């Protein structure tokens, strides 16, 4: 018998409980306070994954009741598809039982060690069984289970199994008692749920804490999230141990068909080449491969040319949902700026596809004198621990934020300012620094992408801060010409017994700006937009103003004399003579708005842009027609996806 197999047999005989006890740290149950967070996390991650798979909008109820000084009863209930009766004991009562082998995709579940660890922890600390109710939509009744884990045989010990009536279509409810410590604030259950709500705006999460306080994170997006597609593993993303597992479990009889059938990106031709390079006969039975053969095969993968992995297995959150999530959960802070979230193009490290996303929130009641908060996510799951040694934090620290208008001592480390940074790394394999899966390792390819995404976001912050400064200066000048200057005129005239002079020429000299400002009044899907244009320059102006409407359709009349071309989706005003100190108000209505109306982008042509505030110069090569067609293409793609 192979020595490896012999070892494997021995390993099975080690009690699971013993394994757990020895590896508590690895499994994340190393402190009473963390244990409670871990238990919630395992259950909630499972619920979200299950809902996603079934294309259900998740509604998850989490309840923690204090039973004793250090014993809590945790209940997590979802509206997911439920688990079929015969699978329930395996899912909850068998250690390291997974539903998916040999498929690669970005799921939350790969991060924990599974819900069975929670059941086991509960059993070890309180001696009580886990109570589970599961209902699937095909059956009329739900089933109630009481399960413990037989730690010697690593099998579920079902203490009770009976049908019960529940008033819902489908879903799972798990209830466990466990020892722990409930905390608030940093690294708490609440923080975990809040951050989860940010990156899952399609979910409603309700939390009832030990004090009976109920916190609701309401859904902000009514379309279920598309689950990422499963793909076969990419040869470069497979480690030797996995390769061993794959050969032992494959249905293929020959090495060549194993390579073409069980991996992505391997053609017949390439399989032949791999066999040649590794010196293995392509007709060998893959099950017969020894460790040494596998090593040669693994080496051969690196020597041949293989297409990078497909990105279908990735599931970025996307700009829209990141923004929705941030607004939904952090809206109470009344931030003055949300960056347009950056979702980078997918990239690859060691054969594993990954994607990086960044969203920034600035201002409002976010503290000004504290280090910025970094919200870290891996595959849509919040990372709460080991922030200091995590690549996602490091990437923020590596940027010289002073260039972007934030304070940062020495140009490194976390900057100080009213900002929250959201970073999401999605990958079929997140490169954690350790088995505890709490921090991401600094992989060069990932660091590069993080840097680019953060800088792209930081540039937006800078642009925002510059605009803010320009506005502040102008506000100051408005005050100057409207309050101070008239007083100077009044006082001097009084002292000399003279008339108060007309101040308009002086005002335009001081302001010297063409000021464009919009005022939006929204009512549901309709909005009225007033555009005030004031000529605070000493010259007569002659220009064309364009309003580029980001959302909705222009409805009814545009006042006065604006041209609207429905196909081009912009409004154009031509102003032939606008005298100094003259003010014009334009007005248009919008319908079919999708959400809260953002800002109209104004472009101006025919006047010096240096003295314009509130409109961008119309670039020479800026072609509204072309821009429009790009937008349409994107919309078609989106629609196309929805129909699938």
């Amino acid at each position, binding site marked *: 018998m192979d020595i490896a197999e012999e070892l494997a047999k021995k390993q099975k005989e080690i009690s699971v409980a013993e394994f757990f006890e020895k590896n508590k740290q690895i499994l994340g149950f190393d402190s009473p306070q963390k244990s409670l967070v871990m238990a919630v996390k395992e259950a909630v991650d499972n619920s979200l994954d299950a809902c996603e798979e079934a294309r259900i909008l998740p509604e998850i109820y989490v309840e923690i009741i204090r039973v004793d000084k250090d014993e809590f009863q945790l209940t997590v209930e979802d509206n997911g598809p439920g688990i079929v009766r015969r699978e329930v004991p395996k899912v909850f009562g068998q250690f390291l039982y997974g539903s998916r082998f040999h498929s690669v995709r970005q799921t939350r579940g790969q991060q924990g060690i599974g819900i069975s660890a929670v059941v086991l922890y509960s059993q070890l600390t309180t001696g009580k069984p886990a109570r589970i109710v599961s209902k699937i939509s095909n059956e009329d009744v739900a089933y109630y289970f009481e399960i413990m884990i037989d730690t010697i045989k690593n099998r579920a010990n079902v203490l009770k199994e009976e049908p019960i009536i529940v008033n819902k279509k489908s879903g799972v409810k798990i209830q466990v008692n466990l020892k722990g410590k409930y905390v608030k604030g940093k690294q708490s259950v609440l923080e975990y749920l809040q951050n989860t709500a940010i990156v899952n705006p399609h979910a409603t999460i309700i939390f009832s804490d030990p004090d009976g306080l109920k916190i609701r994170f309401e859904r902000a997006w009514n379309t279920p999230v598309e689950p990422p597609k499963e793909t076969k593993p990419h040869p470069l993303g497979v480690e030797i141990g996995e390769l061993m597992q794959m050969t032992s479990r494959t249905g293929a009889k020959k090495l060549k068909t194993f390579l073409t059938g069980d991996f992505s990106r391997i053609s017949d031709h390439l399989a032949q080449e791999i066999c040649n390079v590794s010196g293995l006969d392509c007709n060998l039975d893959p099950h017969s491969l020894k460790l040494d053969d596998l090593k040669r095969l693994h080496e051969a993968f690196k020597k041949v040319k293989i297409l990078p992995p497909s990105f279908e297995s990735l599931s970025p959150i996307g700009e829209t949902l990141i923004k929705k999530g941030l607004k939904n959960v952090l809206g109470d802070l009344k931030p003055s700026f949300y960056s347009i979230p950056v979702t980078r193009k997918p990239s690859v490290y060691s054969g594993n596809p990954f994607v990086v996303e960044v969203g920034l929130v600035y201002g409002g009641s976010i503290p000004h004198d504290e280090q910025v908060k970094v919200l870290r996510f891996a595959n849509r799951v919040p990372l709460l621990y080991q922030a200091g040694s995590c690549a996602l934090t490091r990437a923020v620290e590596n940027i010289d934020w002073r260039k972007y208008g934030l304070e940062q001592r020495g140009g490194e480390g976390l900057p100080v300012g009213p900002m929250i940074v959201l970073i999401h790394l999605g990958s079929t394999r997140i490169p954690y620094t350790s088995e505890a899966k709490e921090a991401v390792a600094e992989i060069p390819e990932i660091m590069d992408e993080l840097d680019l995404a953060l800088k792209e976001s930081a540039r937006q912050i800078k642009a925002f801060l510059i605009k803010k400064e320009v506005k502040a200066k102008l506000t*100051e000048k408005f005050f100057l010409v409207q309050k*101070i200057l008239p007083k100077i005129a009044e006082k001097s005239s009084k002292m000399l017994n003279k008339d108060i*002079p007309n101040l308009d020429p*002086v005002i335009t000299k001081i302001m010297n700006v063409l000021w464009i400002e919009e005022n939006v009044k929204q009512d549901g899907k309709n909005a009225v937009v007033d555009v005030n244009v004031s000529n605070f320059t000493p010259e007569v102006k002659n220009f064309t103003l364009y309003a580029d409407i980001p959302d909705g359709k222009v409805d009814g009349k545009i006042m006065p004399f604006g041209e609207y071309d429905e196909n081009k989706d912009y409004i154009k005003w031509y102003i032939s003579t606008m005298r100094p100190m003259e003010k014009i108000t334009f007005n248009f209505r919008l319908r079919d708005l999708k959400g809260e109306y953002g800002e109209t982008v104004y472009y101006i042509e025919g006047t010096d842009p240096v003295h314009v505030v509130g409109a961008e110069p119309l670039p020479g090569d800026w072609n509204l027609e072309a821009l429009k067609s790009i937008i349409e293409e994107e919309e078609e793609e989106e629609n196309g996806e929805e129909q699938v």
Partner: protein
Amino acid sequence: MEKSRYEMALESLKSIVEKIHSDLERGEVPSMELPARTKYNIVLDITKGVWKYGDAKITRSAKKIDGAYTLLRTMYMMDFIREMIEQNKSSTLRELYYISEGWDLAKFHTQDESNKLAEDLEIVTRFLREDFKLRPEEDGATVIGNITFEEINRKGNPKRINCRDDVGDAGYAIPYNVEKDKLKIISYDADFVLAIETGGMFDRLVENGYDEKARSILVHLKGQPARSTRRLLKRLNEELGLPVLVFTDGDPWSFRIYASVAYGAIKTAHLSEYLATPTAEFIGITASDIVNYDLPTDRLNEKDIAALNAELTDPRFNTQFWKNEIELMLKLGKKAEQQALAKYGLNYVTDVYLPDKVSELGI
């Protein structure tokens, strides 16, 4: 009938208002021009031996918010002065500051702001703030020694005071107006004037009877001396021909006290020929004294060092003596107080230190 100096001052102020008003009428951004009040814009008047403002001007314009505020305050202050002159009232600088509370946007945020603006008006009009009916508070600087003044008291009667026999230990308090119409010098019997920075040292010299022992007039500067103190020193020097010696702590700030007595202060360089005593001598404490007398010291702090470095680029200190002293102090990294001389006993300053220093100067 001839115009009073108040009326002339008011006319001069009105010409500033005229300029602002005509700017507005012509559609120009209102502005006023005044000399730059920095150490880079003071020049030595060779004939008078004092430092005055040079030709560099700054323009205060309503184009920027700060300039606009200052112009507005200028308008309010001038209107207030007009009112006082017309109603024959006067106010202290502190009162002016408090009165501005009612000026809405034009109110001052610190008394420094209002003091400085009053000085600006002096500079532009070449009148004194007293001509604007503005006066400083009495600052408590005092004189002890054998000199007799005749002061017109608040009842309008002349009152003779001998600063040795008619005063208590605190001495004769210098009034804010020391011009001849207010204060006459009747007689004196002394060889020199000693101006002292700190109250502690002044008291020590008084207790030791240094005024009689050394035939000196002791003047307590009370830190950075007020205009009236400097004006009085100048009169004692010019009218009586008495040498003025300045005795201060040994630190960068005290060097500046001496400079303001001898050369004129940067802040009041427009009045230097009226306030400065170019022949005033610095006695100490010098940096060399720290070494020669082995005085107890304190370490220079960051601000001290910055002040010393600033003095190296201050034209008033551009002499070999000061260069050596400042550089030595920087090298030592130490400063010393006048009272550090007490290390050698309470009489050391009057028995040894001052006699040494004074004879060095040939007095």
